[in-house]
C-alpha cells in the first residue's frame, strides 16, 4: 500500500514528470496559453497515459519478453500508443460526444508527447508490475496535468503583465517553468525510494 502511495507521490511531486524528469515539455509549453485548453489536455493525457502505460506493459511482459524481442520495444510501444490514442478517440466519440467535443482536438497531440513513450520505457526499466505500471502512468499524467493547469493559469496572468520584449512569449514561459521547478525542488526527498 505505502509503496503504491510512494509511486504516486514520487511521480506527481518529487519526480514530477515535467519539471524534474523533463518529459512532455512540448505540450506543456504549447497547450498552456488558455486555461480551458490546458484542462482538456490534462484530462485527455491522463486517460491515454494510464491506458497506454498498461497496454505497453502487457505487450512487453507477454509478447516481447518471452520472445526475446526487447529491442523492438520502442517501435512497438509507439505503435501501441498510436493505436491507444485512436481507440480512445473512437471510444470517446461513441460513448460521450460531449467529452469528445472538449477533448477530441487534444488527442492527436498526445501521440507526440514524449511522456507517454517515456512512461512505457520507464516501466520496463524500473521493472514495474501491472498495478505499478498503471499507477506510474496515472501518477505521471496527474503530475503533468496539475503543473499544466497551474502553468496555464499563471500564463494567463503573465499575458497581461509588462514583460520585457525579448522575454515575451516562450522565454517568460520557460522562466516560469523554471520557477516552478525551483519550487518543486522542495519536494526533494519526499519519496525516499
Amino acid at each position, binding site marked *: 500500500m505505502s509503496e503504491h502511495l510512494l509511486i504516486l507521490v514520487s511521480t506527481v511531486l518529487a519526480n514530477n514528470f515535467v519539471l524534474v524528469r523533463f518529459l512532455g515539455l512540448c505540450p506543456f509549453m504549447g497547450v498552456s496559453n488558455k*486555461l480551458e485548453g490546458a484542462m482538456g489536455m490534462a484530462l485527455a493525457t491522463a486517460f491515454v497515459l494510464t491506458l497506454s502505460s498498461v497496454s505497453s506493459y502487457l505487450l512487453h511482459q507477454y509478447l516481447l519478453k518471452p520472445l526475446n524481442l526487447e529491442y523492438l520495444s520502442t517501435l512497438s510501444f509507439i505503435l501501441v500508443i498510436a493505436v491507444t490514442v485512436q481507440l480512445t478517440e473512437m471510444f470517446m466519440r461513441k460513448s460521450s460526444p460531449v467529452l469528445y467535443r472538449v477533448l477530441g482536438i487534444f488527442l492527436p497531440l498526445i501521440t507526440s508527447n514524449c511522456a507517454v513513450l517515456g512512461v512505457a520505457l520507464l516501466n520496463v526499466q524500473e521493472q514495474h508490475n501491472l498495478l505499478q505500471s498503471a499507477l506510474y502512468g496515472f501518477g505521471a499524467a496527474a503530475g503533468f496535468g496539475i503543473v499544466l493547469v497551474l502553468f496555464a*493559469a499563471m500564463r494567463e496572468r503573465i499575458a497581461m503583465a509588462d514583460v520585457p520584449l525579448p522575454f515575451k512569449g516562450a522565454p*517568460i514561459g520557460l522562466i516560469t517553468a523554471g*520557477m*516552478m521547478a*525551483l*519550487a518543486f*525542488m*522542495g519536494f*526533494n526527498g519526499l519519496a525516499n525510494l
Partner: protein
Amino acid sequence: MTRSFKTSGAPHMPPQTSVANVMLLVLYALVPGVFAYSWFFGPGILIQIILATVFALLFESLMLRWRGRPLKPFINDYSAVVTAVLFALCIPPLAPWWISCIAMLFAIGFAKHLYGGLGQNIFNPAMVGYVVVLISFPQAMTAWIPPLTLSEHSLSLADSLITIFTGQVPVAGGWDTVTQATALDSLKTGIESGRMVTEIRTSPIFGDYGGIGWEWVANWFALGGFFLLYKRVISWQVPIAVIGSVILLSLPFWLADQDSNPLPLQHIFSGALVLAAFFIATDPVSGCVSNKGRLIFGAGVGIITLVIRRWGGYPDGVAFAVLLMNMAAPLIDRYTRPRMYGE
C-alpha cells in the same frame, strides 16, 4: 467673467496613501523582530540587511534602466528594500556576502523584472532568491550560528564583518566552526534516526516552545504582524490560515505519538513560520486577491510547510511552500471570485 480650470479624473480628493507608504509600514513592522534577532544572534543580520538592500537597489536600477522605465518612482517605492530585508532575515547571519548578490540577482532581476516589475511578479521575489541560493550553496546556507546566549563569547561587529567578507571563522570567539544545527534540523534528523522528541529537546538549542532565542525573535515578528493587521496593510486571513493549518495538521500527529512528533507550538515557533505567516505569505503581489482565496493560500502554505518538514528532504519548507502556493494563486483566484452584488 468666466474662468478656466485644469481637469483631471475623479475622485477629487487627495489620495490617502501610496505604495511607498505601504512598504514603509512593512519595514517599520519588521523593526522589533530585527532588533530581537540581532540581540540573540549578533550584529551579522544587520550587515546582511544592508548588503541585501544595496544589491537589491543595484539590480533594481539596472533592470529599470534596461527596461527603459523611470528610476525615481520605482526606487522610491521601497518594494526592493522590503524584498531585500525579508530575504536577509531568512539566511544564516554570517553567510558570505556574495550570497546576497546572487540571491538579489534572481529575486529582483528574474523573479521581479522579467515579469514586468513591481506588482506583476507571480513568484515571491525574496523567496525565489532564497531558494536559489539554498539549493545552489547548501553548505553556506546551512551554516547557522547558535544564539549568543549559548556561547560564552559575544560576537562583535568586526568579527561578523570578517566572517561575512572573508569566510574566516572568528577565532577570537573561541568557536571551531560557525555551523550549528538549528532546532528544526536537529528535530528532523533526530526523529529520523529514531530518537524521541523529549530526548532531542534536551539539547540546549531548544527553548520553552521553539528554538532558544529564536522563539523570542518570532514573538517580536508577530508583534510587527499585529501592527500590520491593525494598519490594515495585511488581512487576517493569511496569517490565521497559515498558523491554523499548521496547528490543525500537527495536532493529531502529536496526540497520536508524542515521541516522534513535536508539539504544534514547536512547529510554529521554529523556522521561518511566524515571519512567513505575517510578512511573506501576505505579500499581496504574489498572493491571492479574494478573502476566500487568501484563506486557501495560507492553508496551503501551512500544509505544504508541514509536509516538507515532516517527510521531505529540507528541514524547513516555508520558502518552498510559499513558492508552490504562488504557483497556485492564479488558479485559486480564478475560482474564488467573490459573489458580485446582486449575483
